Every structure is written in C-alpha cells, then in structure tokens.
C-alpha cells in the first residue's frame, strides 16, 4: 500500500471514529490533541499525523455548526410520547398571543 493510500485510509478511520461525536465531545477531542501538541509529548515523526487528525476533528466541528436542521419534536403532555415533528416552525397554522 502506498503512503498516500495509507494516509487516506487513516483519515477515513478518523472520520468514522468521530462521526457520532456531539459538538461538545468533538471539541474535547480537539482540545486533547492541542494539549498533546503543546506539551511536546508528540514525537516529531508523528507531528504531521496528529495535526491531520486535529484538522479532521475541526472539520467535523465546523460541519456540525453549519448544520441548519434542528430536531424539534412535539410530545403529548399526558404521555410524553412524540406526537409530531415541527417541520415548519416559522409558519404555524394558528397563533395565539400566549
């Protein structure tokens, strides 16, 4: 396997690892990488890899921030079971002043 292919598969693995992370978890992972870089614990040979890993996490954080879809669920007040998803909250069919 060439060096470029190894790198690509490594990036793919990192992306898979962080795919399920929340923004808070992802920023914590990013801060850990920054702390490692700051503490000199990363060997020079691994420096580029670690920075690449940090970039992947940063891209994930930015992608989360750019997302515009918000999960809004309406629950039944008696059962607290989901009754509907408020898909168009800007245009409620009926408004009252409350």
């Amino acid at each position: 396997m060439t060096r470029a292919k190894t790198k690509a598969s490594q990036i793919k693995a990192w992306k898979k690892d962080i795919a399920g992370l929340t923004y808070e978890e992802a920023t914590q992972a990013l801060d850990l990488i920054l702390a490692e870089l700051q503490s000199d614990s990363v060997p020079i040979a691994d420096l580029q890899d670690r920075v690449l890993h940090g970039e992947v996490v940063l891209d994930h954080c930015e992608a989360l921030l750019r997302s515009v879809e918000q999960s809004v669920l309406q629950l039944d007040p008696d059962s607290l079971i989901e009754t509907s998803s408020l898909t168009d909250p800007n245009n409620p069919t009926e408004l009252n002043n409350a």
Partner: protein
Amino acid sequence: MTLSADRIPTYSVGELNTAIGSLLERGFAPRFLLEATVSRPQVKKGHLWLTLTDGTASVSGVVWASRLSQLSYRPSDGDGVTVVGKLNFWAARASITVQALDIRPSLSTVLRQFEQVRQRLEEQGVINPGRQRSLPTQPTTLALLTSVPSSALADMLRTGRERWPMTRLLVIPIPVQGPVADQIINVLNRLAERCDALAVDGLVLARGGGSREDLAVFDDEALCRCLAQFPRPVVTGIGHEDDLTIADLVADHRAATPTAAMVACLPDRDSAERSLQNRRQRMKDLVGWRITRDRQRLNDRRSLLAQQSPLKRLRQLQDDLHQKRDLLRALSPSRWLQRGLALLTNDAGEALSAVTSIKVGDRIMVQMNDGELETDVQVIRPASDQSKS
C-alpha cells in the same frame, strides 16, 4: 294598564315590574365591564353568589353553576375583580343582579397574591438565589413547555435554529392562562420522572406577553414548588421584561422573554465558529513553534558537537601549550641574563642573593648570558658601606 298623557299611569305590581324589565332591556348595554371588590362570596346549590361593591355602592352578583366551572379564576372575599357581566332583572321581585359571565382578578389582587406567595416561599427557602443551578453550556436536549401553537413558540424555535441547531428541542404543549396550574404541575411531574430517558438537560417554561393578570398562574404556589424541585435547571421566559412572577423567582435563570430564555440556554453558533478558527490557528502555530524550536535545538547540538571534534580539541590543546610556553619563557632567568644581569651560585650550586652569605676567599660561579666564569672573592662591600663611601 292604560297609558295616556292626561292620566297618571296605573300598574299592577306585575305590570310595573315588567315595564321596568322592558325599559332595562331596551336601554341598558347587553354586556358591560364592572370594576369592583368582591364581598361575601358563597356557593349555593352550585351557583356562586357574591356582592360587588366599590366601598359606597353595592350590587348583587351571581355566577351560574354552568359558567362557574369554566371560570379561570375563583374570587375570594376582598379580591379586586373585573367582571364581564349582564343585568338580570327578576320581574317577580323587581330585583337586579349582575350575572357574571367572566371574572378576572384585578392587578391589585394578582400582586397581592404574588407578594403573599413570595413571602411564604422566601421564608421556607424555596426562593433563594443561593440554590440556583448553573445552566448546561451545550445542552443535548431542551424541553420547552409553552402554548402550542403560539408566537412565543415560533420565536423560540427560530432562535434555537439560529443559535444552536445541534440541541434537540422537545416541545410539550401546556395551557398558560387561567386555572391551569394543576395541568402544568402534572406535566412537570411526568417530565421530571422521564428526564433521564429523554436525555433532558434543561427546561424552558415560556409564555408570550399579556397583561400581568394573565400571568397569574405562574404565581401559583404549588406550581412554583414543583418548579423549584425539578431535577434539571429551569429557565423562565414569561411575559415581557417588566413582568416578574413567582416562577421567575424560583427558576435557576430568569429570562425577560421566551426568546431571551433560548438565548440563555443555547450557545452562540457565531462565537463557536470563531473559537474553532482560533483553535485551527493555534494548532498551526503550535506545530510551527515546535518545528522552529526543535530546529534551534538541533543547531545548538550541532555546534556543541562541532566543539567536541578531535581536530578542534587538538588545536585547543596546542593553543594551551603555546600559552604555557610563552608564560614559561616570560618567567625564565635567561631573559634577565640577556639584559646584562648575572646569576651567582656558590660551590654547592646554591643561588647567592646577598653579600652576607659570602666570605672573602669564597669561590663563586657567575652565569651570564653567553657562558659562565668562576671567580674568587677578594673584597666584600655591603650596601651600607657603599652608601657611606
């Protein structure tokens, strides 16, 4: 009954009462608002009877049982109220009663209840700024208790989407006006039990603007105790900025409006983006500094190594040797001999530095710059004799 301009009308009692009723029906507004204080309210056979007074005048009032169950507020003795009413005239007894279609507490009544509840809850430590919990910085899930649909909800959802779309919002419809405290309490209790299951990190209790009287349910003592015990931080956004309810006082954070409540609960996406940019720059800087510093260390080691090379060391030893040789030459007696001075020694080879160690007839060796000579001492003149002569 006969009516004529020439004659004083004559009625039977029934006719008179009917005529009064007819006059009232024609000449009086079918609905009116009446500002009054409630006196001696009492329920008889399901109907609420009361006296409405302004201190000097009074009139009887009634809320029929069918209407009483629909009232959002049940007045107590001494409460200031606004009554939506109509006149009932009973011809049989010619009595007038205000039939109340709706009764709302006046502002003074609402504020009096607010003060009474506040005092009780403060005394019991339920209202205590010291027990306010901090809000989650990046909540995963927020529960929104408000009226659905409502402009308040639309504002909150828009604010949520603009600020932090990653937080899941659970909207739980509640009534927000009238005698609905029990309904809200039931929802709060159910939600409290399922906070973990629903992963709720915080609760927003919100209601759009209205009169202060409309917000009275949020002064309900039981409701506010329930809010104070809710297992997650509670944020209130009730009414307008100037409106303060007991719910606001027991909440962990009071926001002025529903929109402000969402702002308090959710991080700002723009500032988070700036923070990420700062981190990206910091990562680049850290790597740059690390490489620069390691390169500097490498250079330092290279020069240290160069200083330790055998050739350099040999040259240094040679330089040291030259210096010592020069020093030795500088200290050698031959320099003095070259300048015309001589070194005297006796037979034993001991250096002579004073005439007192020499006697007449002694043989002494004289070492000069270009050779030696031996001589016998014939005369000794100590320095004191020379100074005399």
